């Protein structure tokens, strides 16, 4: 083994030069040409950072569309899922509590209309999306709180629905942050 130690140390040094220094440097250099120079794409509202378009944030006020439950309350500096197993009794009662809260804020919405992603925690705790069904369910509440016509909200949702790439690669989804920014815009115009 002795005869291999010095070559191993030297080869490690050169590997670091190539694989860590040169490779990272090259990718970082190319990043300077990407959106926001590789620092993450931000959304600016009134000249200030309101968030990142890829990263979900907490919405629990009645005049905004709600996103998905998050095990880390949307802490973007410490992502995490619930890691709860499917049969856990505490989990099942937590889901029931979320259903009850949702129904308390959305009178007349029956259990079989609430899509499960609205009452289950996402993998990252930072899921920026909900399904279109989940948004349509909330339209009535938002219309009432903002004094807007429900049809306007419905139209806004359909405008913000992102379709699968080429029609079959992906899911139908809505970016909650962008939809809520659009809501604020409508109120501002009126």
């Amino acid at each position, binding site marked *: *083994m002795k005869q*291999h130690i010095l*070559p*191993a140390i030297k*080869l*490690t040094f050169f*590997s*670091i030069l*190539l*694989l*860590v220094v040169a490779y*990272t440097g090259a*990718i*970082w250099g190319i*990043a300077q040409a990407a959106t926001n120079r*590789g*620092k*993450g*794409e931000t959304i600016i509202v009134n000249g*200030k950072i*309101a*968030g990142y378009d*890829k990263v979900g*944030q*907490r*919405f*629990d*006020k009645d005049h905004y569309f709600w996103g998905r439950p998050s095990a880390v309350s949307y*802490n*973007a500096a*410490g*992502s*995490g*899922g619930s*890691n709860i*197993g*499917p*049969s856990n*009794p505490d989990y099942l009662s937590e*889901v*029931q509590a979320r*259903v009850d809260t949702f129904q308390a804020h959305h009178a007349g919405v029956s259990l079989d*209309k*609430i*899509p*499960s992603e609205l009452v*289950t925690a*996402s*993998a990252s705790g*930072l*899921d920026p999306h909900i*399904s279109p*069904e989940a948004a349509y369910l909330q339209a009535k509440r938002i219309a009432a709180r903002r004094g807007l016509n429900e049809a306007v909200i419905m139209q806004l949702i359909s405008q913000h629905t992102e379709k699968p*790439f080429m029609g*079959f*690669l*992906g*899911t139908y989804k809505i970016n909650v942050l962008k939809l*809520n920014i659009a809501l*604020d815009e409508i109120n501002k115009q009126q």
Partner: protein
Amino acid sequence: MKIEILGIVMMILLVMALAIPLGKYIAKVYLGERTLLDRVFSSLERLFFTYSGIDPNREMTWQQNLKALLTINIVWFFLAIFILMNQAWLPLNPDKIPSMSPDLAFNTAISFLVNCNLQHYSGETALSYFSQIAVIMFLQFVTAATGMAAAAVVFNAMRQRSTDKLGNFYTYFLKSCTRILLPVSFISAVILLFSGTPMTFEGVQHFTTLQGDSASLARGPAAAMIAIKQVGTNGGGFFGVNSAHPFENPTYLTNMVENILILLLPVSMVFALGHYLNRKKLSWTIFGVMTTGFLLLLIPALYQEMNGNPALSAMGIHQPMGNMEGKEVRFGSAASAFWTISTTITSNGSVNTMHDSLTPLSGMLAMLGMMINSFFGGVGAGFLNFYIFIILAVFISGLMVGRTPEFLGKKVEAKEIKIAMIIALIHPLLILSGTAIASYLYAVNPAANAGWLNNPGYHGFSEMLYEYTSAAANNGSGFEGLGDNTPWWNISTGIVLILSRYLPLIGPVAIAGILAKKKYIPETAGTLRTDTASFGLITFVIIVLVAALSFFPALALGPLAEHFLIQ
């Protein structure tokens, strides 16, 4: 049929379309033939070898190759543990992250050294950018290259001749880095970069959200690392939730790219073997066995996840997108299930869904993928595991028909079978005894160890079983509800990691080395052919028997019991 299935079919087709030419290219690299990147890297490699005092053309025996492999691994271990325990004062630490505790640093260094990437820490809060690139990313490159170099030595040994000279580890290692891992990672990192993955050395960003909460957001040089994490079947994420994080895997398309990368090199290695030995039929037989196993795990997992959690259905909850606990809307349940099986059969271990929240049967299929650990498997290492099963299959079919067992013109005798048996049995031994001891410790003192399990009952047992399975398969995914950053888990899984990495590397190289030295017997009409469907079937049955007999009782106590509980 849901339209989401089409995305899965598309990924499988793309893997095939890329893996066949890439396999041919890999064979050329290991055969030392001229390839496209010679111009860029030939002189650089020569420079590295000259200044390292290595003669890249010196042919070494299997023992010398293994010594070189193990020595350089030890150097990396000390380098990694030093940086992790001193990251607080080292550069590139904008968020002032403290140094790691000794037991966590030990576990992390080992875990990345063995290409497992079990993470008992969360990337955003526990690692400086320096540790991320100089320890984690560096090891992701070189440990993948180590596995590939070991596979290249075995490829070399399988050629038709008698020799004890089996190529040069350093050449195989460096060429794996420069010719295969680096270019594929480079292209992938650029794709990720322009899809929204960050690549910056700036620290945490503070801002106010739209509804007025104050928020902090972690960033970092992620794109470069995520590429090699997938390419090298490493799987260790930049952020805590790995490829479920919106920065680590921003869109459905990046999800496709990353998932294809998970499978790409493991599948390519199978085709590389065929080109290397000029036995393409053997490649297709192996590919057939592995793909059959893959599909048998995949299809029920897809069905389970797309159907949703039966316990929620029983409550009357509508699950149009399937089981969404621990999943992201942009991927949906089908792409998440596909990833789950891809990442567990290949010893990658990155996740885009939280495995702890999978339906019980999907969780079991993920465990089975790792328990079998040879349907494609890790880059290099996966083929080596399969090689063991081939040797066993040759021996057993030899016994059945009453012929001397032969593999590619070499007699397989007692010594080789002994090594193969030990390697095949060490895997269940480590998993089951680890789980048994942990369960005992928990059972005798549930109060002291209450922090271990995030879930009661059968699922709690599954969390422990999954952890040792993942460690022994060098996979690195987890039922992350397990509170695993404790001295017991850090040290016990660390030991499992070391044994389950190096023994399955040493064993096949030793068998191949011993066989290579033997007299070459040309094939005759009486030779057992190893490139036929019937031999493939026998290999498959042996793999399934070893896994089923060893693991079925443990699976019955965990995921199967939970499945019947909520049906």
